[in-house]
C-alpha cells in the first residue's frame, strides 16, 4: 500500500504541473487574442476571429471563468478553505450535523464527524480535476497518434489492426468497462484513472483518423509527399494542425465526461476511499444520510455539476471558435 501512496503522490505532482500548464496556456491564448486589436498577420487575424466567435456567446466566457476557478481551487484549495484539517480523519462530534447557512464557521454545515462541508467540498475539486487531467493527458496524445498513423495508412493492414483494436474498447459504454476493470483490481483512484484512460483513447483515435483520411488526398499533403518529406513530418506538421479544432473541442467537453465517470466510480465505491474528500465518495457517503442531513451529499453533488457545467460551456465556446460557417455574398 505504501508503494501505491508514493505513486499517487508522484502523479499528484505531475498533475499539478499539467494543471498549471493548462491554465497558463488558456491565459496566454486569451491575452494573445485580446492584445491583437490591430489586424496584422493572418495568424493573428485567425486568432481574433476565433476569439470573436468564442466570446460572441457570453456563456462561453462564464464557462472559461468557471473552468479557471475550478483549476485554481484544485491547486490551491487547501490554502483557501477555512478548515484544511478536515480533509482527512478528523472527529469533532460536538459539531456534527450543523445545518448550512447557520454559522460563519461552517457556512455549508458539517457532516457526521463534525467536518466542514464547504472545506471538504472545495478540497474535493483536486480529485476531480486530477482525474480529468491525468486521463486526458494520457489518452489525447496516444489516441491521436494511433489515429494519425491509421488514417495515413488507410486501407492497409495497419489501419485495420489499429482501428479494429480501438473498437474493442468502445464496444461497451465506458462506465461499464471502467467499473469492471477497477472491480477486478482494487478500489483505488490510480486504477480508476488507468481504467478510464484505457477506454477513452479510441475516441481520439477516431477523430484523428476521420480527419486524416479526409485530408490524405488533399493537395498540400500530396505536394509534401512529392517534395520528399518524411511520413513523420507530414503526419505531425502537415496533417495534425488541421485537426486541432475538433480535438480541442472534444478535449474540453471530455473534461466533464471524465469527471462524471470518475465521480461515478467513486460513488459506487471503486474510487478514492472514505476519509479522502473526493466529491463522488462524499456524495455516496452522504446519500445514506438523506433526507434529514441532505447537505452532506447535495453540496458536493452541486460542486461536481458546477465543474462539469463550466467545462461544457467552455467546450461549446471552443466549438463555436473552430466551426467554419459559410457566409453569403
Amino acid at each position: 500500500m505504501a508503494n501505491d501512496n508514493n505513486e499517487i503522490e508522484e502523479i499528484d505532482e505531475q498533475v499539478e504541473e499539467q494543471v498549471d500548464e493548462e491554465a497558463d496556456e488558456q491565459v496566454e491564448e486569451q491575452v494573445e487574442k485580446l492584445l491583437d486589436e490591430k489586424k496584422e498577420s493572418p495568424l493573428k487575424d485567425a486568432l481574433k476571429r476565433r476569439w470573436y466567435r468564442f466570446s460572441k456567446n457570453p456563456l462561453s466566457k462564464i464557462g472559461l471563468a468557471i473552468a479557471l476557478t475550478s483549476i485554481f481551487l484544485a491547486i490551491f484549495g487547501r490554502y483557501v478553505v477555512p478548515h484544511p484539517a478536515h480533509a482527512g480523519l478528523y472527529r469533532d462530534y460536538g459539531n456534527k450535523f450543523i445545518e448550512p447557512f447557520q454559522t460563519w464557521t461552517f457556512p455549508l454545515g458539517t457532516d457526521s464527524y463534525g467536518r466542514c462541508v464547504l472545506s471538504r467540498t472545495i478540497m474535493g475539486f483536486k480529485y476531480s480535476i486530477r482525474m480529468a487531467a491525468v486521463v486526458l493527458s494520457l489518452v489525447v496524445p496516444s489516441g491521436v497518434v494511433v489515429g494519425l498513423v491509421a488514417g495515413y495508412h488507410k486501407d492497409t493492414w495497419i489501419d485495420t489492426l489499429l482501428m479494429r483494436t480501438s473498437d474493442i474498447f468502445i464496444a461497451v459504454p465506458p462506465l461499464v468497462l471502467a467499473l469492471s476493470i477497477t472491480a477486478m483490481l482494487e478500489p483505488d483512484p490510480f486504477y480508476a484513472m488507468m481504467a478510464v484512460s484505457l477506454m477513452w483513447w479510441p475516441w481520439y483515435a477516431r477523430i484523428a483518423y476521420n480527419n486524416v483520411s479526409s485530408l490524405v488526398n488533399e493537395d498540400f499533403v500530396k505536394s509534401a509527399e512529392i517534395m520528399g518529406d518524411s511520413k513523420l513530418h507530414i503526419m505531425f506538421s502537415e496533417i495534425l494542425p488541421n485537426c486541432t479544432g475538433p480535438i480541442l473541442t472534444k478535449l474540453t467537453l471530455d473534461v466533464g465526461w471524465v469527471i462524471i465517470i470518475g465521480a461515478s466510480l467513486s460513488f459506487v465505491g471503486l474510487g478514492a476511499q472514505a476519509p479522502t474528500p473526493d466529491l463522488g465518495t462524499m456524495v455516496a457517503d452522504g446519500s445514506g444520510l438523506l433526507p434529514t442531513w441532505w447537505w452532506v451529499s447535495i453540496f458536493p453533488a452541486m460542486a461536481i455539476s458546477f465543474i462539469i457545467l463550466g467545462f461544457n460551456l467552455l467546450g461549446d465556446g471552443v466549438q463555436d471558435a473552430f466551426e467554419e460557417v459559410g457566409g453569403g455574398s
Partner: protein
Amino acid sequence: MTQQKVLEIKNLNVGYETYRGVTDVIHHLDMEVIKKEKIGVIGESGCGKTTTMKTINRILPNNAVIKGGQVKFNGKNVLDMKKKELMKLRRKNVSMIPQDPTASLNPLFKVKTQMKDILKYSKEYDEEIDYKAKSIELFESVALSDPERVYDSYPFQLSGGMRQRVCIAMSLATPKDLLIADEPTSNLDVTIQNQVLNLIGNLLEERDLSAILVSQALGTVKKFVDKIYVIYAGTVIEIAKTDKLFSDPIHPYTIGLLEATPKLTGGGFSAGIAGQTPDYIDPPSGCRFRPRCPQYSDKCKNERPKLIEVEKDHYVACWGN
C-alpha cells in the same frame, strides 16, 4: 409613364453581421425592371449580385441586415410585406434559378416529393391534378431526357446539368412575373453551360417574361438581354442598352471588363483590371472603384458619384465625365 414597372429598387443598403462588425455590401443600389424587359446584371464575384437578388424575394441568410431602401414589386414594397403577402409574392410573382443546383435541392427527398410540394402549395392547380404528369411536362419543357427516371430519383443520383434543369423546372412550375437567374451556369461543366443558357434564353423568349440574368461575364448574357446593369462593390456604375454598352462603354470598370472578355465562356476576365473588390467593413470613401481606377481625382475620394444620364437610356456613375 406608360411602361409598367415590375420591379423598382431604390437606394437599397444591405450588409452582413461578421466578427469585425457589420459590412456595407449593397450601397445605395438602384435598379428597375419594366414589364417584359430582360436585363443583365454583371459584376465580379462578391460584388453583391446574389445579395441583391435574394433581397427581392427576401430569402437572405439570417446574418444579413437590410439597412434601408425600398424594393417595390408591382408597386408594393417587399421590405414592408407581411408574411402572407410575402408568401404570395414568392408563389406567384418571383421565381429564382439558383447559382448552385446541388446545394439548392434537398438531398434527402426525391425530386418527385419536392416537385409535388411546389405544385401543391402554389395553389395554382386543383387538388385533383396529376402531379406526376405535370412534373413530367415541366421536365420535358426544360429538355430533360428520361423525365420518368429523374422524377423518381434523389438529387445526388443526377448529374449537375440535370439538377440545374430540375431547378429551372421548379422555378417555372407556376407562371411568374419575374424570373431571376442567378449565375445559373457557374457551377456547371463548360460543355453544359451553353446548353443551359440557351435553354433559359428560349424559355424567356417563349414565355415573354420579365427577367434578370446575373452573370460574371458580359459575353454570357449578351445574346439574351435588352439592357445591362454593371455592378461594382454593391453599387450600380453603368446602365446601358446591350448594344450601346458594348459599342460605347464609359465607366473605366466597364471598359476593363470588356477588354478582358474575349471569350464567350468567360472565366478569368477580371485579369484586365488590377486589384480586387474592396473590404466591405471599411470600403473606400467616395467612389468605391477609386483604388483600382486608372484615372481618379480628389473628387472621387470625397463624393459618391451618382448615376447620370449621359445620353438617352445610358447612365454612368463616374466623376470622370
